[in-house]
């Protein structure tokens, strides 16, 4: 019989990536059609604009078992809605600083700007982020035990 307790499972993080419809989601698409790889544990959620992401989305992702959350949008100045990502930048800057103040690891959440033409960058960003989170380990400080138990 297999001994489950001593079996050492390699940690594969769950990553949630919020991608804006106009740039980063298209960037992910380009990465795919260019046959560039990025880890399969990155789960993309398409949002109309990076500024659609409410701080609660990020916390909710952590609650539901994410180990890292990355938010991707158009480069500042290139927003489809002209100014959306400027607001994102301020919101996330204050939120990230605040999460760190609460003692949550600062590397766990990240913002990256990826345009529709940057398929290669999308893949590089995701590879790098997954590597960071794998080194960082499991999300314990913002996880919900009730969700974990149900897994």
């Amino acid at each position: 019989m297999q001994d489950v307790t001593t079996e050492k499972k390699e940690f594969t993080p769950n990553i949630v990536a919020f991608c804006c419809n106009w740039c980063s989601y298209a960037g992910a698409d380009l990465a795919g059609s260019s046959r560039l790889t990025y880890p399969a544990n990155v789960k993309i959620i398409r949002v109309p604009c990076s500024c659609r992401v409410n701080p609660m989305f990020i916390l909710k992702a952590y609650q539901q078992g994410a180990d890292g959350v990355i938010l991707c949008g158009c480069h500042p100045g290139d927003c489809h809605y002209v100014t959306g990502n400027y607001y994102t930048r301020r919101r996330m800057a204050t939120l990230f600083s605040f999460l760190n103040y609460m003692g949550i690891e600062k590397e766990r959440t990240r913002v990256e700007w990826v345009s529709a033409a940057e398929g290669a960058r999308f893949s590089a960003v995701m590879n790098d982020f997954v590597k960071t989170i794998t080194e960082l380990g499991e999300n314990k400080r913002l996880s919900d035990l009730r969700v974990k138990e149900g897994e």
Partner: protein
Amino acid sequence: MKDVELKMLERAKELLASGEVARVVGWKKGDFCYDPSPAVFKTVEELENGFVYDYFCGANLSKYLIDVSKKEGKTAVFLKPCDTYSFNQLVKEHRIKRENVYVIAVECMAKLDIEKIKAKGVSFVTGVEVVEKDVKVSSLYGETTLYKPEIVLEKCAVCNKTHQVKDEEIILHERPVRDVNRFAEVEKLEAMTEDERFAFWKEQLSKCIRCNACRNVCPACSCIKCVFDNPNSGIAAKANDSEFEEKMFHIIRAYHVAGRCTDCGECSRVCPQNIPLHLLNRKFIKDMDGLYGEYQAGESSEGKTPLTSYTEEDKEPNDVFNGEAK
């Protein structure tokens, strides 16, 4: 303070009797000397029976104007310096009808915290008398003299606020401007390591019983519908059944008022568990001051807040930690 109270009472009676205002918002006597509560007075008799203004009137009255300013007739309200910031902020958000409110600015001289008095070992307090920096506290067990700066409310300890709005004023004594740093405690936390901070907040937030008092008292937290009342949100539990919910509630509560919080300190005053909630709000204020320029919510009833404006040169979120760019 007694002279101020008498003058306020006289003026309130005058306004009601002449019909200039339909109601007066002030403080009414509680069961004990240390628990006066906000109240709406509609007649001169009500004023005579219950009106009070003393060292325990710490409550911020501006939030009550959201409802009463929509009623018929004018409302007179007594506002302390810190309350006027919340008033301005609510006018800015179109929650208070400014033209329906008659603001009477009253002096403050710092309010006392009954919890801090109790912590000094004085219970069953029956009255206080303040002489300069000494507070003579009388209780059922006799009289004790306490040092005032040690027993004032947290919000008063670092306050240098002045009235931002007034239609008339009742100020008999000036409060001296002091040299205080309201971010001192935030800086202390920032200097800790990540693990220490996590432990600190875990200890503090695990005391939370989710009574929602901090939300209910906050002038900035006055949405008609609140996410924490939505039973489908998964975070509306009345008692925390997971550590996550404690953090979720407090992060979202603090973030929701970021840029609009005037640092009136009501959240910490009402918390039955004495969680230092003002340290969460002040972190946002400090960060936004550092990153986007000094800003005090409620200084004006016009203009944009840091989170509803931007510049092209703003710092990247990944580079910002501890309120400073790397």
